[in-house]
């Protein structure tokens, strides 16, 4: 079978699996819909969390990002995994004990305030939508490349699938679909990685092949890569060019943002007991680490492969994958010096006479994972498998985010704020309508993304870091933190972060250079400062305003001990 036939078959099979699982585990009550009745075993919850968390960005873009940035790419690796330590130690067990349905639920009850609840709803919806638009776009791109349909048709197919299992199944359907999606995506990621590792380093485990010996040159792979980089005028692969302060800030923003993302937090409401919440964070990170420790290996293999196959070669002799991707516009070659060879060089490259050489090749970093099987001439079925894995990653995250939007509207806004008398049935219908509407908005954002969407996706983390994390943490660890402090902290943190990003990305992009950044922190890392602003404002304001009422003190005491957790949402009923 050719690539197209394999892709069709594997994508269709995996979709049939997801839909079958969704039908078998559809939601019958609001408790099913919001938290899967709190009955998910920790191991399954860990897998679902891993799929929920690992988006198209992790699956498709991350290895490419690292391949192009070398050491600087570490911010994503440490940032997107380190946050789970914070989640496990500082948030998950307490939020599970509290037993709410959503993040705004906790904020509203802990801070005894409808205003705080509404502020949290706005933050959650804003964060989720900026993030989900990028996922839908990712779905569209994978479809358009592998099924050869226009991007908007690809997005619509994706919408149909997500609509089906998010709207019908709610949290319960999503959870078990995500377990299946995790299996598909990790298999799809590891298979080509193992092939590449064998090919390049002669080791079946990519994590070891990464530190192993390059079969072609007989030196260590990383030394060979540093050598090639030096030859071609790039900064050394293992050292990077970003300033230390910026690397620190970006890592911190991604870590704290991960711990504050609403679609990840709500997953820990779905397990039966507090101890299961702790364990399930561990499982989630283990399953994530399987991909995240493979990604930098894939990056190094892909980089070596790329430099070996195209750099300095005559354009007339390029391999087939090169021309395939050229037709999508994701690879571009411009023969500046007219010699018919591909000069793929860094900014400091010079020719033997000492004259500077211009780079002639532009490669979209998103294609590295998708093109890898073709670059390494792997069998056709592997190419199809990677497409199915990329779709699983994008769809599972999109579904998790849409659920946050739908529960924020139906539960937090409608049931808890506007119409407390609504019946269980009415709330479930509202939740499904909201999920349906959210799919349509997300699809629209994916088909016709306003210019800023792609830019803002990475900043969803900064926004989550600067809004939710501090007040959740203070809500658990400080008995004195009050309503006024929390609201002021959330509003100032998210406003500060959003303003900094908007200024440097949209108002005055020309000024977006290290000399103008505050303390040398780029917009990507500003969430770390936003988090400090939130903490500072919250502590000062709460010290100047009256302490919280006595029942809140009792609530804080009760979430600090695990016993008597009860099913989700008993305490705040």
């Amino acid at each position, binding site marked *: 079978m050719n690539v197209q036939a394999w892709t069709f078959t594997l994508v269709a099979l995996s979709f049939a699996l997801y839909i079958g699982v969704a039908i078998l585990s559809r939601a019958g009550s609001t408790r099913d819909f919001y938290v899967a009745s709190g009955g998910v075993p920790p191991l399954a919850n860990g897998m679902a969390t891993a799929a929920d968390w690992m988006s198209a960005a992790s699956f498709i873009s991350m290895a490419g990002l690292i391949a192009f940035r070398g050491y600087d790419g570490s911010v994503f690796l440490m940032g997107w995994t*380190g946050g*789970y330590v914070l989640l496990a130690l500082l948030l998950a067990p307490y939020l599970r004990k509290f037993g709410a349905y959503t993040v705004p639920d906790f904020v509203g009850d802990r801070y005894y305030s409808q205003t705080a609840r509404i502020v949290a709803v706005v933050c959650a919806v804003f964060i989720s939508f900026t993030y989900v638009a990028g996922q839908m776009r990712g779905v569209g791109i994978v479809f358009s490349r592998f099924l050869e349909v226009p991007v908007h048709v690809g997005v619509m197919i994706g919408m149909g699938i997500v609509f089906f299992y998010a709207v019908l199944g709610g949290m319960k359907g999503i959870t078990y679909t995500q377990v299946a999606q995790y299996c598909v995506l990790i298999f799809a990621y590891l298979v080509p990685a193992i092939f590449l590792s064998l090919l390049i380093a002669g080791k079946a485990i990519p994590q070891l092949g990464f530190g192993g010996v390059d079969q072609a040159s007989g*030196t260590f792979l*990383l030394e060979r890569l540093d050598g090639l980089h030096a030859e071609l005028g790039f900064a050394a692969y293992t050292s990077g060019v970003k300033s230390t302060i910026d690397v*620190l800030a970006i890592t911190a923003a991604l870590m704290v943002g991960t711990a504050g993302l609403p679609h990840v937090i709500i997953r820990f409401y779905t397990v039966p007991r507090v101890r299961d919440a702790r364990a399930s964070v*561990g499982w989630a990170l283990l399953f994530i680490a399987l991909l995240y420790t493979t990604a*930098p290996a894939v990056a190094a293999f892909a980089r070596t492969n790329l430099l070996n196959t195209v750099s300095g070669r005559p354009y007339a002799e390029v391999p087939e994958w090169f021309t395939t991707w050229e037709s999508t516009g994701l690879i571009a070659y411009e023969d500046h010096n007219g010699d018919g060879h591909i000069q793929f060089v860094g900014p400091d490259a010079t020719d033997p006479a000492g004259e500077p050489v211009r780079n002639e090749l532009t490669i979209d970093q998103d294609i590295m994972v998708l093109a890898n099987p073709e670059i390494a001439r792997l069998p056709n079925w592997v190419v199809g498998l990677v497409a199915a894995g990329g779709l699983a990653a994008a769809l599972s995250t999109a579904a998790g985010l849409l659920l946050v939007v739908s529960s924020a509207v139906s539960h937090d806004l409608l049931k808890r704020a506007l119409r407390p008398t609504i019946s269980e049935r009415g709330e479930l219908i509202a939740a499904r309508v909201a999920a349906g509407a959210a799919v349509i908005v997300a699809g629209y954002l994916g088909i016709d993304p306003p210019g800023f969407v792609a830019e803002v996706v990475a900043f969803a983390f900064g926004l989550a870091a600067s809004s939710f994390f501090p007040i959740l943490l203070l809500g658990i660890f400080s008995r004195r933190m009050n309503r006024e402090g929390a609201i002021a902290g959330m509003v100032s943190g998210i406003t500060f972060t959003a303003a900094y990003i908007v200024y440097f990305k949209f108002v005055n992009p020309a000024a977006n250079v290290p000399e103008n950044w505050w303390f040398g922190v780029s917009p990507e890392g500003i969430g770390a400062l936003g988090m400090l602003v939130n903490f500072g404002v919250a502590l000062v304001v709460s010290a100047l305003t009256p302490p919280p009422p006595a029942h809140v003190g009792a609530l804080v005491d009760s979430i600090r*001990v695990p*016993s008597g957790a009860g099913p989700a949402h008993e305490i705040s009923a």
Partner: protein
Amino acid sequence: MPQPKRRQSAYWRRNLRYVGALLVVWFAVSYGAGILFVEQLDRIRIPGTGFPLGFWFAQQGSIYVFVVLIFIYVRLMNRLDREFGLDEDGS
């Protein structure tokens, strides 16, 4: 099952001690070894591999440590819950 206040705060203090100790390790392997001291550590090479030590911590090692940290926390807390009679099977 109401707990005497003093016992509860002893439980909470132990919890905070565990969390503090584990976060120190979390900070040391990521921000410490992976970022702040990466250049010094990069002079050391992990024997038998091509990994400079700091680079390894930044791209692989810290992630392995994170996973282990969480499972250590789970073990410690399960033991603590039992010791204080706060585990959920007892309630």
